[in-house]
């Protein structure tokens, strides 16, 4: 674990959706991370001005700490990371941070992952960790996105589903749906949760991540369904473009 700032170099950038990009970081001295943890990014301008933000680590433990960044309309750091930054550029990072909102196969399941928009990032680290460790813990990921084009990692999630190892993905598209869409087409509400979530008697662990209002509505809904409050872990991202 490191408490100080480390120099990181962007080695690759990968567009996920029109507003979202993954940055693959090379961080000498990176101590390793767990799925669900985040890191702090610090940027310094030439005049010494500094800005700092937190980003969830998208990659599985053992990999480099990739981050996936959504460009926020009024953002100061996210437009730089999501648009300007190029391979070879350097930023400072601190971490890994977070020991509560983490999951590993040893924590068992069944596992319910509920994501609002870019809240899917730390949950994707969990999904990737699960796949990389050959775990068969029954897992459902519910991803709420505005449109299909905005659904982050949708291809990789489809691949994970195709492995037949107990991983399922349910999408809901809240603003616009492609022609022929037969899936959910609304914000996650109690009824949708009831249909998608593991039943309470399964004793599932839930991780909920996204904007604050999304997280609170979903976690309340899960507890109302009978989930043990101690088994519903939350991470709030603050407001995101909606």
């Amino acid at each position: 674990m490191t408490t100080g700032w480390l120099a990181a170099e962007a080695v690759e950038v990968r567009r996920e959706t029109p507003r979202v990009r993954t940055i693959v970081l090379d961080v000498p001295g990176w101590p390793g991370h767990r799925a669900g943890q985040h890191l702090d990014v610090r940027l310094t301008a030439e005049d010494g001005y500094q800005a700092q933000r937190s980003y969830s680590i998208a990659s599985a433990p053992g990999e480099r700490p990739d981050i996936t960044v959504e460009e926020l309309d009024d953002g100061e750091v996210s437009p730089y990371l999501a648009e300007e930054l190029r391979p070879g550029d350097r930023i400072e990072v601190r971490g890994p941070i977070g020991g509560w909102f983490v999951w590993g196969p040893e924590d068992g399941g069944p596992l319910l992952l509920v994501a609002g928009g870019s809240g899917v990032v730390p949950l994707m680290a969990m999904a990737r960790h699960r796949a990389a460790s050959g775990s068969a813990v029954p897992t459902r990921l519910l991803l709420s996105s505005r449109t299909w084009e905005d659904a982050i990692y949708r291809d990789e999630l489809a691949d994970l589903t195709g492995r037949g190892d107990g991983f399922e993905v349910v999408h809901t598209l809240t603003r616009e749906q492609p022609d022929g869409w037969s899936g959910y087409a609304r914000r996650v509400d109690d009824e949708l949760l009831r249909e998608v979530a593991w039943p309470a008697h399964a004793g599932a662990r839930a991780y909920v991540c996204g904007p604050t209002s999304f997280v609170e509505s979903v976690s309340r809904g899960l507890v109302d369904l009978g989930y043990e409050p101690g088994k519903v872990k939350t991470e709030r991202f603050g407001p995101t473009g909606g």
Partner: protein
Amino acid sequence: MGFVSRGFHGRRRDEGPEGRVPPGQYLTDGFPVLSAGPTPHTRLDEWTFTVEGGAEQARWTWDEFRALPSEDVTVDIHCVTRWSKLDTDWQGVSVDTLLDGVEHEAAYALAFCDGGYTTNVPIEDLTGGKAWVAYGYDGEPLDPEHGGPARLLVPHLYFWKSAKWVRGLQLLDDDEPGFWETNGYHLYGDPWREQRYWGD
């Protein structure tokens, strides 16, 4: 230090017209909402404003408060988080009006608020036309997110002194640091001398 991220500039920082914006501040178009807790929602029929620590307690209900003479003022405001907003329009009751008729020898006041927030201001900085209890912004009732039904307005000090959801003033002989002043923010908070933190 020397570590620079190529191409990063940060938000465009408008330092504003000379002499209007204190050092280290930049202008904002919006009106950022900063809050140390959930927005209280005190009903107007339960709201009171109290001045304690004088010879007698002075107390106004909302209706009594709104019946006091009030003013329209246009002032610049400066937040310690570095944004400034020029020419903001407020409607409120001058603290001079509230202290008028309160017999006291206090040199300091501690403003107290719904939600538990407190902040300390010398009496001298609350009087002489320098401070108000504001109930209106831009001609509209003050929004709860911005401190409504009423907030303290002390524009010549950093804006954390303009306590939201203010419910009264406690008059004191000695300066008693409030919520942020006990935890690193400057006891006085003059933006023109950049008094942001202890020791500044």
